[in-house]
């Protein structure tokens, strides 16, 4: 079909004797929404940590756009176009919503060793930040204190921050966690609107959202990928039914 943007080969991570990531292979195509599902403790978040560079892998390689990024730090992976969000909301509560996003624009807009000009008055940066906010429907919240946003808005803000880094690939760790029904509908629409322009790797427990969004689903159980493919095929896969979807579906 199209090009593979992210390729993972034989990735491993052990915490002591526990194999948290056990020989994972993945291929994420450019422009697709790739969902990672699996029961609690399957190692999904650890895998995101490894992909984003927050956690070093024990073995294996990660290729981004054909380049081996395994040895790179999280900062350097961001510069290449791979950004992430966090399972537990991680924003700068004390800054304005706009500044949270402007900070990410600033990170890729020349040197930040500039000591004199007021950063919050850099129109070019603010314009790009505003554009990212508009894309996640938060334009009217720009001057609010980020900590005062509702939970769902904070999740939207996190996606705006990831977009503002200029990333081509977003690693989203349970973007719907803790959101209410309406909030989650906004976020699902938002993610759908990113299909094509961005590549999304998504961890999510909300199966309705996963199967309505994803082009490709990989199932992780005990650190292993037990199935990977189109949603319908994965849903029908006997191992997946047994290990994960099974109880619900049969019941």
């Amino acid at each position, binding site marked *: 079909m199209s090009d593979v943007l992210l390729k993972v080969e034989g990735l491993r991570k052990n915490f002591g004797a526990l194999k948290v990531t056990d020989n994972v292979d993945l291929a994420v195509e450019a422009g697709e929404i790739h969902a990672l599902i699996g029961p609690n403790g399957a190692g999904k978040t650890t895998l995101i940590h490894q992909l*984003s560079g*927050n956690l070093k892998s024990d073995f294996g390689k990660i290729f981004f756009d054909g380049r081996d990024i395994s040895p790179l*730090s*999280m*900062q350097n992976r*961001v*510069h290449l176009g791979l*950004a*992430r969000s*966090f399972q537990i909301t*991680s*924003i*700068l*509560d*004390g*800054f*304005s919503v*706009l*500044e949270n996003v402007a*900070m*990410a624009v*600033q*990170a*890729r807009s020349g*040197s*930040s*060793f*500039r*000591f*004199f*000009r*007021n*950063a*919050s*008055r*850099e*129109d070019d940066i*603010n*314009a790009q930040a*505003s554009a990212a906010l508009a894309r996640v429907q938060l*334009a*009217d919240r*720009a*001057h*609010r*204190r980020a900590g005062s946003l509702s939970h769902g808005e904070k999740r939207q803000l996190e996606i705006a*921050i990831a977009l*503002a*880094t200029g990333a081509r690939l977003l690693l989203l760790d349970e973007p719907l966690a803790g959101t209410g029904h309406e909030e989650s509908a906004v976020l699902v629409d938002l993610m759908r609107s990113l299909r094509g322009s961005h590549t999304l790797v998504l961890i999510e427990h909300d199966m309705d959202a996963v199967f309505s969004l994803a082009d490709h689903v990989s199932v992780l159980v005990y650190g292993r990928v037990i199935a990977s493919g189109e949603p319908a095929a994965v849903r029908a896969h006997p191992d997946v039914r047994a290990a994960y979807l099974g109880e619900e579906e049969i019941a």
Partner: protein
Amino acid sequence: MSEAATPSLGPVSSSVIDAPHVRPPLLAQSAPWLIFGLFAAVPLLALATGDSFILVVATRMLIFALAALSLNLIMGYGALVSFGHAAYIGIGAYAVGILSSYGINDLLLQIAAALAASGLFALVTGYLSLRTSGVYFIMITLAFGQMAFFFMVSLSAFGGDDGISLSGRSTLFGADLLRSNLVLFYGVLGVLAAAFLLMRMLVASRFGRVLRGTRDNPTRMRAIGFSPFSFQLTAYVIAGMIAALAGVLLANQVQFVSPAYMTWARSGELIVMVVLGGMGTLLGPIIGATVFILLEDVLAHFSEHWKLGLGLILVLVVLGSRDGMSGLARRLRGGSDV
């Protein structure tokens, strides 16, 4: 008057960015003028009362305000609690003492030497200290501060434990301007005002924004592509150099240089000044240092156990407001304590 305090939660004009988000602009508007204006009027008070000691105390306030201001850059805006900051005051003071013992009395040369020595010391110790964080950072800066202290104690060529008495104050282009306490006072006030403006600019700049962001959430900053270390190290060096400038001024005021300036108790006092006035606020350290020196002077009149009273006041201020006295003032004036 407190119009500016109302947080703009209502609809905002789409493109105009009005509030540089450092702190709510309540105090930031009028308070600096008030404080610097009051200080500028102190010589009149000295003249009116005929008590020239007032000028001496006020100069001391300004010098420690400068040192506290520098500590606040790393502690208040970077969450880097240095317990060895007094070492930089000592380095600045010794730059004056050592050079003048070789007959070099020119203020600008002494300042250049102080900045170079403190910058180098901060670069090396900061490079090592910033590999740690939290309590370990406090401990390692304490250790470096004490190393500097004991180094000067054992350096008998320059007085060792006894320090160096200076024969006079520094000269500026050969002129003995600073001999007058009044000139020294206004000189120090000018330096503090310049440092205040510099600090205000730094904190709002790109650099300052990264520093503040890292203080609040280093993981988030890495996740958008920043490497905090070099920003923190730069702030650490700037803070050290400004503290050394305070040391140059202190040596000039008291015309005496000793390792006692560098003890960890001195570093602790600087931390107290910053916390007392309000960490991470621009004016806080100036207010904190002023109040600290005032209490030191006033309470010491009543009892030699004056630090007990200071402790009590510190407890009350910290319990009363997280932002120290400047936060307290904001609350008393009815502003929001966000």
